[in-house]
Each structure stands twice: as structure tokens, then as C-alpha cells.
């Protein structure tokens, strides 16, 4: 049988070499510190994770990460926004037109999205409660299994 193991690192880590495991560990520590300090509590980060989260669904920390992202993006922004127009000569007229349309629609969109925001907030709260309950239940079950295992081993 022809087999060849390739799992050993290609180089031995010495003074000149970089141990990628150690480097990644250091980076993970930095990320953990910054996460705790709220550095990544940012809508931009939450939106960046939208495709990535699909890859992490089997991950142990998936729900924590998912909820962290959800908390950032759950409120729909219903505030006024800058109305701009890039079409050169017509820009002033188009901006006035868009502002007029926005004034007419503002009340209705506000009503619609404020209701949506209430729904989103309730859904988020429900998921968070379920997550906390599941964690508590799993932790309780683990403790019971450990206690039973100790009992069996005598």
C-alpha cells in the first residue's frame, strides 16, 4: 500500500520561521478583546457576514454570531436621508422633485416601517429568549449526564 502522510508542517519553526497556529491564535485573542469592547458592533460588520453565516451554521458559536449580526441590522432605518442627484444640469430640478415625493410618502413609509421595526424587535427578543433557554437546558442536561457518569463509574 502506498501512503504518505502530509500532516507534518513543511518547516520546523525556529527563530526565523512563523508559526501560523500561534499567529492565528494571537489574532483570535485580539478579535475576542475587540469584540468584548464592542469594536465590531457595527451594521457594516453584520451585513458583511450575511453570506458567511451560511457556512457557519454547523458551528458551535453560530447562534451567538448570528444574533450579534441580527442585533445590528434588525432596526430598519426610517429617518430622513440626503437626497442627491448626479445627472448634471437637471440635478437641482430632480432633487426638488425627489424631495417633494419623499415628503408625500414619508408619513406612510414611517407608519409601515415603524410597525415592521416593532415586529423585528419582538422576533429578535423571541429568538434570544429561545437561545438562552436552550443553552440553559443543554447545560443542565450536561451536568446531569456528568453526574450520572460519575455515579456509574462509582
Amino acid at each position, binding site marked *: 500500500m502506498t501512503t504518505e502522510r502530509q500532516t507534518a508542517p513543511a518547516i520546523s519553526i525556529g527563530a526565523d520561521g512563523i508559526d501560523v497556529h500561534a499567529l492565528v491564535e494571537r489574532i483570535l485573542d485580539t478579535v475576542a478583546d475587540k469584540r468584548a469592547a464592542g469594536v465590531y458592533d457595527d451594521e457594516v460588520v453584520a451585513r458583511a457576514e450575511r453570506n*458567511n453565516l451560511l457556512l457557519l451554521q454547523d458551528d458551535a458559536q453560530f447562534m451567538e454570531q448570528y444574533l450579534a449580526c441580527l442585533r445590528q441590522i434588525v432596526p430598519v432605518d426610517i429617518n430622513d436621508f440626503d437626497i442627491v442627484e448626479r445627472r448634471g444640469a437637471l440635478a437641482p430640478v430632480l432633487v426638488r422633485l425627489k424631495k417633494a415625493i419623499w415628503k408625500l410618502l414619508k408619513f406612510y413609509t414611517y407608519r409601515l416601517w415603524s410597525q415592521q421595526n416593532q415586529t423585528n424587535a419582538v422576533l429578535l427578543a423571541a429568538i434570544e429568549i429561545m437561545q438562552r433557554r436552550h443553552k440553559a437546558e443543554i447545560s443542565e442536561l450536561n451536568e446531569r449526564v456528568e453526574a450520572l457518569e460519575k455515579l456509574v463509574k462509582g
Partner: protein
Amino acid sequence: MKIAVVSARLHEAGTVGGAETLLYAFALDAVRLGHEVDLLCTCATDHRTWENSQPPGVFARDGMTVRRFPVDSRDIGRFARLQIDLSRGWRLSRDEQEEWLRQGVNSTPLVEWLRSGKGGYDRVITGPYLFGLVAEVCRAVPDKVLLAPCFHDEVFARVEALHDAFRGIRGFLFNTDPERELAHRLMPGLSPKVEAVVAMGIEPFEVSKTAFARRTGITAPYVIYSGRREEGKGTPILIDFLNAYRRRTGRDVHLVLTGSGDVALPPSLAPAVHDLGFVSEEEKREAMAGAVAFVHPSVNESLSIVVLESWLARTPVLVHAKGVVLKWQCESSCGGLWFKSYPEFEEELTTLLDDPGTAAKLAEQGRRYVLRRYAPDAVRERFRAALEA
């Protein structure tokens, strides 16, 4: 030894997939080792339609004999329906699995040629795992088959009809250790005569780090991705992460893309993306050499050649931690870092940008690894041992 290499399509540079390129490399290596080689392929050139676009026949090429056989007629609609069911994770009955294999690419004349024994082959090399043709070849001459499966951890790799076809064959030519471990997880109790990790040889090259910037005028720091752009390759994640990186850090880091496929760009990122499409090998290497990092967020690879090329171009890589093989390549070589979330990506890219010394050392470690493991002579020696085992 007389060797048949069975490839669904004949290798033409830039037009076939990685598995077909790998099979052609095996065929060339077999010729270099002094064996008589027949390359058996179908008349198809398009992997979506599998239509017979070339005439059947026999001709010589690169020191081997190419024998081209017609593809069987197929019900594409039926195939697509079963393929979709599989993709959804639905379990197919045994009959449906066989139907899925039958309606995929097949060539009864090719399989009959092998079964007849007229070729007098001592070894039959084929792959990748998910073609009906490959399963039929394994069933026809199991004691001669060395399969280069190019396994990915995906739903198609769990089709039992394929496992049964592969269980009795002579052996496997894996690309990596994780691929071999995956094969054992998929098919418990697997015990072939030959189980070799061979992969593909890469000719070493030297390339200027500044040639790309001189030629294109792109002077901003950039990351690069080469290959097909699609969801399965993680391209949307790369786009999302780089867009977020630019917005959060305010740093003008660009993205250079080579290869094919459409990519949806947010307006804020579009001006910083340079889509070069298909480029020559030289241009690709120059682009790799000038990059801060090669970013490969795919989680379904059996071996990434572009990552190896990137190291030869002295550029470190960033890969997704969920990509078992890519992470293994980085761990084995100490030539790259892996990330599982945006914050990790942000920290790692910043490290490579701000600490060129570390980036250069990682890249050099990767290069040394490629020169040692994937030098054509080293690969050919592993291939020779697998053939003779």
C-alpha cells in the same frame, strides 16, 4: 506498463476543469515514466450540455494515443430534476441514484472498449468521482482502476451507488490527506490496495513583484482571487468582506480578479475592483506576485493549485477556516492564515498590510513547501509508486 487515462473531456488549456487538468498531468507523467498511454475521452467539450461536438476517432498527441468516443444520449430534464433533489439534501432511492448517474455524462462505447480488454491496459486512471462515466469505468475494470476522486465534502459525495462502485477498485490517487480522510469517512471500512496522496506537479517560477503595477498602473495595495467566481467558491464572501474592510478602516485596498464568472459588486466597491478576466499564465503570476494576499474563501476544494502558485509567486494567502483542505494547505506550509468571520479577516489583512516582514516570511514558507512537495519530480515519484504498487 500500458495505461489508460479516462477523462470526460480532452484537456485544452483554459477550457476544462481542475480534475481534467489533473488527469492530463497524470497522462503526461505516465509518458515521461516510459509507459504506453492511451487517453480515453468523449467527443464532448461543453460540461453543461455534454453534446458530441468533436468527431470520434484516434490520434496522437503529446506522446500518447487519444481515443475519442461519443457521449450517450441523455434526458437532461430528468438529470436536472434529480440533481436538484440531491442538492437540496433529499435522499434518492437506489434506482433514482442509478438514474442520476445514467443521465449524467456516459459513454457506452468507451466503457465497452475497456471491458473488451482490446486495449490491454494494466492500469486505468480516471476521475473525478461524480460522473456516471467514472462509476461505469470502475464497475467495468475494478481491479485496474486508480481513481483520482477529487472528493469534496458535499451531498453528491454521499451517493451510495458511487460508494459501491468505488469499493472494489484497485486504488485511489488523492490530492491531499484531508481528501483521503474524507474518503474513509464517506466509505467506512474502505481498504484498497493503493491509497496514495499524489496531487499535481507545479513547475517552479520566478516573477517580479512590481511588473503588474508597471504594466497596469494599479499602485494601490490589492488582494487577488483567481478562478471561477461563484457562490460555491466563496466569491460573495470575499466581496462582502473587502467592502466592509474598506468602509471600516478607510484603507484603499483593491481587489484584482482573474478567471471567469459574473460577480455582483456593491457600488462602493466597484471602483476598487479590477476584473482582468482570462489572462496568460505570466500575467496571472505577475498579478499574484504584486498582491498583499491571495484570498480564497472557498470551503469546497480538493487541492487549490492557485494557492500553490500564489506561494511560488511569494504571496501569502488568506483562506476560510471552514475550507478543510485550504486550511490544511496553510497549516502544512505555514504559508497562510485562516479566518472564520469578518473580524478575523479584518485583523489578518491588517497584519499583512502593516507588517510586510511577516507577510514575506509566510510567503517564503509557502514557497519552500511547494518546491519540496509539489516539484514535478517529487509528484512523479509518488505517482510511479502508486502505479507500481
